[in-house]
């Protein structure tokens, strides 16, 4: 059985190739579910049974990706044989090992689940190749596992063509073609815009990955929310977070030119039951160099305006149409997002905001502290910041790859972002 890759899948397939070219282990996403205490033995057995049941039902979890004259496709030959790994190591060690080990989509290695029983750092790690699905989909899969252990079905219609289709992209080929051609108007000005922070000619490697995670807690989250409201208003969290990242970058690296943020945004229309697919669009938001350093609030409003302009031109739909229409567009856009191979912070940094974590407070009988995110990213730009919310409040994970991690330590950068979001004064801040 075959199924065509969606435009989002194609984008992630290109990124997967770039990560491997940079010596990395593929385009991986990862969820680190942190438990307060290890699970009971019986609960671990339930988890393993549920994971195996998911693979039996959803063949897509074991699909291999290939390419032919009509484009890239998924090939599914039968149920995915999924096994839950059990380790006495810490969750951090187990998860780091998954990231370094990689998952090869061409061989049907798409997902990996591990349980770490270390008393001081217990939890479950789910690692997946991003060609398969986005983080919100995989969170939903984790949330569904306890029901599968008791005989429920996943209920995913993964074999249907529409299952992977991108929201906003016209289904009619003629309309999609027109939308794709219109993407040129979106891409042309981006190309003229100077790429950001090209810091030299040497290439950065995709490995090793260095990570740091921060959860703000209730008090600091409330403070951050109040400051965000004052700066950008309701429903405008993302621009403020981006402004904080921009100011942190400039505080550490200096003001070196305009900044450009490649951002992934959720395109799921709730209730969306298509868990095992990518359903997000792409934003490219520019910010004048030095603005975030001068005034955090003003930078947030400028990014909000850029977001609105991007949405107003229908750029997300046009780009996805173009990626699914012209074979070269996905590759060009991915390379553009990643700075065309320039070193250091050439494309600023990759940012995502996954929003509120979908997992319940208790999972297989264990108390969930929170869920940290991680990615394996290309050597350029070699930096990613992943925002999310859970019981610990607003949190974010910083991932730095290769030699960049020696100059820009993720812990330092995470602290710099935290300072910008909750401490640094700006006009109008409460």
């Amino acid at each position: 059985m075959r199924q065509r890759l969606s435009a989002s899948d194609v984008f992630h397939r290109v990124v997967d190739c770039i990560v491997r070219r940079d010596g990395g282990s593929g385009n991986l996403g990862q969820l680190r579910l942190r438990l307060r205490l290890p699970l009971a033995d019986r609960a671990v057995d339930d988890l393993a049974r549920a994971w195996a049941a998911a693979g039996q039902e959803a063949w897509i979890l074991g699909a291999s990706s290939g390419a032919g004259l009509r484009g890239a496709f998924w090939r599914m030959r039968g149920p995915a044989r999924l096994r839950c790994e059990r380790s006495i190591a810490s969750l951090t060690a187990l998860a780091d090992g998954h990231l370094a080990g990689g998952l090869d989509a061409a061989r049907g290695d798409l997902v990996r689940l591990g349980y770490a029983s270390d008393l001081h750092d217990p939890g479950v790690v789910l690692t997946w190749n991003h060609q398969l699905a986005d983080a919100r989909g995989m969170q939903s899969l984790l949330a569904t596992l306890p029901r599968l252990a008791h005989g429920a079905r996943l209920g995913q219609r993964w074999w249907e063509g529409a299952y992977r289709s991108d929201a906003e992209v016209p289904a009619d080929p003629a309309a999609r073609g027109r939308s794709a051609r219109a993407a040129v108007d979106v891409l042309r000005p981006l190309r003229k815009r100077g790429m950001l922070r090209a810091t030299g000619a040497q290439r950065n490697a995709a490995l090793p990955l260095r990570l740091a995670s921060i959860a703000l807690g209730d008090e600091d989250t409330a403070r951050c929310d109040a400051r965000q409201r004052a700066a950008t208003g309701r429903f405008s969290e993302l621009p403020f977070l981006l402004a904080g990242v921009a100011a942190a970058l400039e505080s550490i690296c200096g003001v070196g030119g305009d900044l450009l943020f490649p951002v992934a945004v959720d395109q799921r229309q709730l209730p969306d039951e298509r868990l095992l697919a990518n359903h997000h669009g792409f934003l490219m938001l520019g910010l004048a160099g030095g603005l975030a350093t001068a005034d955090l609030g003003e930078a947030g409003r400028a990014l909000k305006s850029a977001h609105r302009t991007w949405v107003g031109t229908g750029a997300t739909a046009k780009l996805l149409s173009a990626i699914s229409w012209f074979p070269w567009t996905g590759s060009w856009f991915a390379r553009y997002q990643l700075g065309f191979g320039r070193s250091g912070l050439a494309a600023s940094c990759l940012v995502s905001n996954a929003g509120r974590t979908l997992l319940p407070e208790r999972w297989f009988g264990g108390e969930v502290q929170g869920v940290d995110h991680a990615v394996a990213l290309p050597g350029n730009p070699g930096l990613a910041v992943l925002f999310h919310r859970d019981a610990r409040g607003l949190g974010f994970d910083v991932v730095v790859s290769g030699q960049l991690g020696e100059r820009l330590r993720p812990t330092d950068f995470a602290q710099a972002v935290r300072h910008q979001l909750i401490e640094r004064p700006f006009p109008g801040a409460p």
Partner: protein
Amino acid sequence: MTSLPIADAVYTALARQLNLPQAQLRARAGEGLDALGLDSHGLMRVLLEIEQTLGLPAGGLDLPDQALESPATMVEGVAAAART
């Protein structure tokens, strides 16, 4: 008091974004927009659709925070913005 076309424009745009039947959305007009599933990206799309439907200048619909509490307050907010 808001005019009917404004309310229709707001509920149509919101219903499309939230993937809800319009009648159901009107019945839940007092509920929080975030509880209904709206996010920042979705709000952008809703505001742009309302601007286009009502023929307002592009980018001119900048609603205050209190207008973004619920579908009902959004109708009031858009009506106030359209008057100015």
